[in-house]
């Protein structure tokens, strides 16, 4: 919303400076987005008089002028054809910045003659496009400031423009009067009374208006009147200047008048060319499928239920949003039908959005205009039409009635102070509300008709607070809720998430934050892509579906990094994945990928492609860090994006999966444009059981002083025997004595023959009561061999 200071002064009697007005606006909640003040650019220039103008000795087109200035006579070389003796000019001196040519002047020599300044054209001062000659003023004294002369003689040229952002709750501030009212309440001047107009009609309007019964709820009021014999044409210069200043294009007097009311009083109006209206006007709901070419020359097709205005030939106007081109006013219009109506805001918003029309009318009608101003608006606009275009008005036709929006709320002045935390005396609170148009009676504040946003006592608090100025608010300490050492604030899950995150970063992974939505193909590849996870309005097809897994986002990140020349990567993310479209269908996961090699090339030959066991070590580290039990079940039934033979899930039994690790399927990697190998791990953070017992004790340490003994065994087993079975069998041979079983070697093929492998384990025996004898050791060794044999069919390697 833009307004000029002179426009503001139509409504506000004030001597406040532009800066004070702007500061007050911002503080009141009408945030200033820009100030355009011609005074800032023209302030340096003064008036001067040309005493003589001689032809330049070396140039036919130049004149050497002697100019009388407030600093004495100066010589100025000038090329303008109208530079001549006796005229009053606008002088720019050396050191002045001339905006139109973007130059700061200095004393210069022009063809051998020194020139001490310049006499400016309108274009050089950005006053207009005029550049046929220098400015000649009809009046003014030498040394007078040019801006002062303009203010006195041509004020629109120095009218500062302020642009403010209007929050959706303040439709009244979409009119200059609303802004003036706020400023007056703040004490920046006095609100001028609104001029009342009453233009008597000279007979009934030949055009009648009706509202269909089923439409009355969405359109309670329509007023109109015919004005015949008008002379349309360009509007007067002052009106054009105003509209231009706030960013509108002057069209014709009739249209400019409606735009004037839109910006002056937040009062959209419409004018029909009465000669193009066939029969009466009828406000009704569209059947659906009808079309109309709007004033913006675009064709609109209506949905059933949209509120429109028709004549005998069909729809002529989109009520409260935009008029139709066929009945629009032109320079030739002689009979005009003026409309002022009050529409339901929701209906306007819905229709405007569906038709994608962003007009000034829609903007205001969907935020809410003043219903009480409907009748006065007709009169005031009629008066203005008569003033500018002449004509003869009919009586006013009325359909529907002014809706009753009167309401009042209790003003609890103590509550205001308690909420805001500022000392605002009760009298001041009442005065503020009164200045804003509220009527205070018996402790109740009656809301003015132009404030649809005020819907309860809380809104009164806001009005009082913003006028009192929140800038003045001083912070007051807020006591802690509890005395003493602050309690921990994170939930077990939040702590777990942090622990997992920092564990993985400590393992050398770089944390990423990728978008929660991905493209459909990637979503489908990783188990998602269901219809309910699709956004209705994605900003691009790359971001259309909620991610079912963190893997695709990380793989896309890997691909981008590989394109930049980083081939070996360790990336991870902690974040939500989505199993469906309902709010509860999400879960927090941590997922990491290792891509390429373990590290850069080195002298140690340690560099190798990443493999499943890297991912396994990392998933185990995460699970341990968040308190998962040490013994987990391996499940080999994997989703399609994992390598079928080189991956597994880890769970508390086959149904309760905590995580997964392994190599990704080569096809999945290729489809994501990543150069592999890629191994990955993923942990369902919330699935790991949370500790039940609340207590910090650890239990006693059972360390024995007796010497432990280690014995190695190598078993030959079938190649598909899983090491875990062998280890578990060995460990089960004597649970009291065997402290640990570890696989330290695997050998496949060779002398063992096809389909066989050797697994070497080391068993650590920890006696508790007495040192082990050879006999004890032999006994347990025999039992280990027996148990392993039974469980795996393995035999000791000869």
């Amino acid at each position, binding site marked *: 919303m833009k307004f000029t200071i002179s426009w503001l002064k139509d409504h506000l009697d004030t001597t406040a400076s532009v800066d004070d007005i702007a500061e007050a606006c911002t*503080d009141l*909640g009408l*945030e200033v987005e820009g100030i355009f003040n011609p005074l800032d650019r023209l302030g340096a220039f003064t008036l001067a008089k040309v005493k003589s103008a001689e032809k330049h000795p070396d140039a036919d087109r130049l004149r050497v002028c002697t100019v009388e200035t407030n600093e004495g006579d100066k010589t100025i070389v000038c090329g303008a054809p109208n530079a001549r003796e006796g005229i009053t000019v606008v002088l720019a001196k050396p050191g002045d910045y001339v905006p139109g040519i973007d130059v700061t002047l200095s004393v210069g020599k022009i063809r051998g003659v020194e020139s001490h300044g310049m006499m400016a054209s309108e274009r050089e001062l950005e006053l207009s496009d005029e550049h046929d000659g220098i400015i000649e003023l009809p009046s003014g004294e030498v040394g007078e400031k040019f801006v002062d002369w303009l203010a006195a003689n041509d004020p629109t040229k120095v009218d500062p423009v302020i642009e403010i952002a209007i929050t*959706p709750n303040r439709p009244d501030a979409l009119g200059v009067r609303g802004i003036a009212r706020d400023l007056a309440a703040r004490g920046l001047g006095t609100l001028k009374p609104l001029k009342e107009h009453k233009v008597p009609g000279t007979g009934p309007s030949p055009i009648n208006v009706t509202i269909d019964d089923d439409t009355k709820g969405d359109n309670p009021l329509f007023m109109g009147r015919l004005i015949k014999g008008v002379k349309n044409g360009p509007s007067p210069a002052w009106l054009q200047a105003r509209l231009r200043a706030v960013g509108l294009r002057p069209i014709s007097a009739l249209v400019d008048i409606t735009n004037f009311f839109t910006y002056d009083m937040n009062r959209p109006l419409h004018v029909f060319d009465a000669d193009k209206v066939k029969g009466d006007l009828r406000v009704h709901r569209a059947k659906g499928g009808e079309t109309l070419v709007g004033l913006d020359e675009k064709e609109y097709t209506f949905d059933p239920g949209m509120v429109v205005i028709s004549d005998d030939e069909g729809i002529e106007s989109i009520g409260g949003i935009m008029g139709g081109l066929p009945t629009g006013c032109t320079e030739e219009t002689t009979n005009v039908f003026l409309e002022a109506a009050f529409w339901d805001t929701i209906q306007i*918003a819905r229709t405007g959005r569906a038709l994608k029309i962003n007009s000034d009318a829609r903007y205001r009608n*969907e935020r809410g205009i003043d219903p009480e101003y409907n009748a006065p608006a007709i009169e005031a606009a009629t008066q203005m039409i008569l003033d500018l275009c002449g004509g003869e008005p009919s009586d006013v036709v009325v359909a529907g009635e002014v809706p009753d929006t009167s309401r009042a709320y209790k003003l609890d002045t103590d509550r205001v102070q*308690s909420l*805001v*935390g500022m000392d605002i005396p009760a009298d001041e609170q009442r005065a503020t509300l009164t200045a804003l148009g509220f009527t205070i009676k018996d402790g109740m504040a009656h809301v003015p008709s132009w404030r649809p946003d005020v819907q*309860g006592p*809380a809104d009164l*608090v*806001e009005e009082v*607070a913003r006028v009192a100025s*929140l*800038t003045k*608010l001083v*912070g*007051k*300490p*807020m006591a*802690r*809720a509890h005395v003493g050492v*602050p309690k*921990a*604030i*994170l939930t077990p899950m*939040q702590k777990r998430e*942090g622990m997992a995150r*920092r564990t993985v*970063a400590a*393992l*050398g*992974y*770089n*944390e990423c*934050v*990728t*978008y*929660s939505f991905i493209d459909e193909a990637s979503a489908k590849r990783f188990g998602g892509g269901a*219809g*309910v996870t699709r*956004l*209705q*309005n994605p*900003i691009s097809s790359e*971001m259309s579906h*909620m991610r079912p897994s963190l893997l695709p986002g*990380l793989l896309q*990140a890997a691909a981008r*990094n590989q394109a930049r020349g980083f081939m070996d990567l*360790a990336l991870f993310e902690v*974040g939500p994945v989505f199993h469906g*479209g*309902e*709010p*509860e269908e*999400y879960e927090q996961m941590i997922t990491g990928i290792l891509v390429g090699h373990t*590290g850069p090339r080195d*002298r140690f030959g340690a560099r190798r492609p990443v493999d499943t066991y890297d991912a396994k070590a990392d998933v185990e580290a995460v699970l341990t860090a968040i308190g998962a039990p040490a013994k987990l079940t391996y499940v080999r039934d994997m989703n399609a994006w994992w390598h079928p033979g080189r991956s597994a899930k880890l769970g508390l039994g086959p149904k309760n999966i905590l995580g997964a690790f392994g190599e990704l399927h080569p096809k999945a990697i290729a489809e994501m444009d990543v150069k592999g190998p890629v191994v990955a791990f993923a942990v369902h953070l919330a699935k790991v059981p949370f500790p039940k017992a609340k207590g910090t004790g650890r239990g006693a340490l059972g360390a024995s002083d007796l010497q432990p003994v280690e014995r190695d065994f190598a078993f030959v087993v079938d190649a598909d025997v899983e090491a875990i079975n062998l280890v578990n069998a060995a460990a089960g041979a004597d649970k009291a004595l065997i402290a640990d079983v570890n696989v330290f070697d695997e050998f496949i093929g060779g002398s063992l023959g096809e389909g066989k492998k050797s697994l070497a384990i080391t068993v650590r025996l920890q006696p508790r009561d007495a040192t082990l004898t050879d006999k004890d050791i032999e006994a347990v060794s025999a039992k280990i061999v027996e148990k392993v044999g039974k469980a795996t069919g393995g035999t000791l390697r000869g």
Partner: protein
Amino acid sequence: MDDLRQKYIDAVAAASDETALEDIRVQAVGKKGEVALKMRELGKMTPEERQVAGPKLNALKDEINSAIAAKKSALADAALDERLRTEWLDVTLPGRPQRQGSIHPISQVTEEISAIFGDMGFAVAEGPQVESDWYNFDALNIPAEHPTRTEMDTFYMTMPEGDNRPPHVLRTHTSPVQIRAMMDQGAPIRVIAPGRVYRADYDQTHTPMFHQVEGLAIDKDISMANLKWVLEEFCRAFFEIDGIELRFRASHFPFTEPSAEVDIRCSWEGGTLKLGEGDDWMEILGSGMVHPHVLKSAGVDPDAWQGFAFGMGIDRLAMLKYGIPDLRAFFDSDLRWLRHYGFAALDVPTMRGGLSR
């Protein structure tokens, strides 16, 4: 006997390696060595002679043994020195490579924020990111068809065929967590709610996903002046600048009344932003007193309870504090960016240790 002593002490001193030393030991103090032979002669002596010679021989044996031991260790030291002289390495060669992980600035800054608010007694609340229309809008006093809704650039979910509920949305702010937290815990309550939020906007300064932290404090007598104090304390602690000043400016949010936008004093001198000094103001967050309708939606009696809420951008706070120029880069996962702007795994922000290193 003195000759014997001198002979072996000299021999030990002259020995050049362990073998020579062992030969000397056998010759001197071995079972058949010269000292042993002398010991045998003791039997032939008178008791008086024996009393003199015996201790002397024992002392001699001890002396030779010690000399041998000392020489042995000297030889070992010399041999070690010699070995070490040959074991020179070029220590400027690179060490064994180790991957260096990092924590994303969003995570780090979120932890910083919760450390500060935790100290002030705010717990951390969470909520879903696919949110029902009611939690994201209605409960927050944003009625259907209200311009505020359309101005929010909301992402809508596709509802299953035949499902007539209003479509779910990707939460446009963390404010729905206010409602969920109050419904769960009632009043009094102090929570912050950090997390991902979504708006359909993508340009130089906007990404369709970003992060907000919501704050909510409800009690019997919490005022807007308390809100200002809490935010000022927060900003001073977070930016680690004591002189930070905030300015409240009236504004409008449907879920608060009165509402204020909050500006931070700053200077742009020389094109660089400095907080806590200068004459400019930069908007950093929105806040206000929780609207009675919002309290009511969440089952809290607005006549008995009052309090404030605020919301600010975590990404924005991170950019301001750590001088990160481009929001879009947060979500690009460029390894160079992650390493440059990321934090070490063990760099955990705490109130006692300070937030940044």
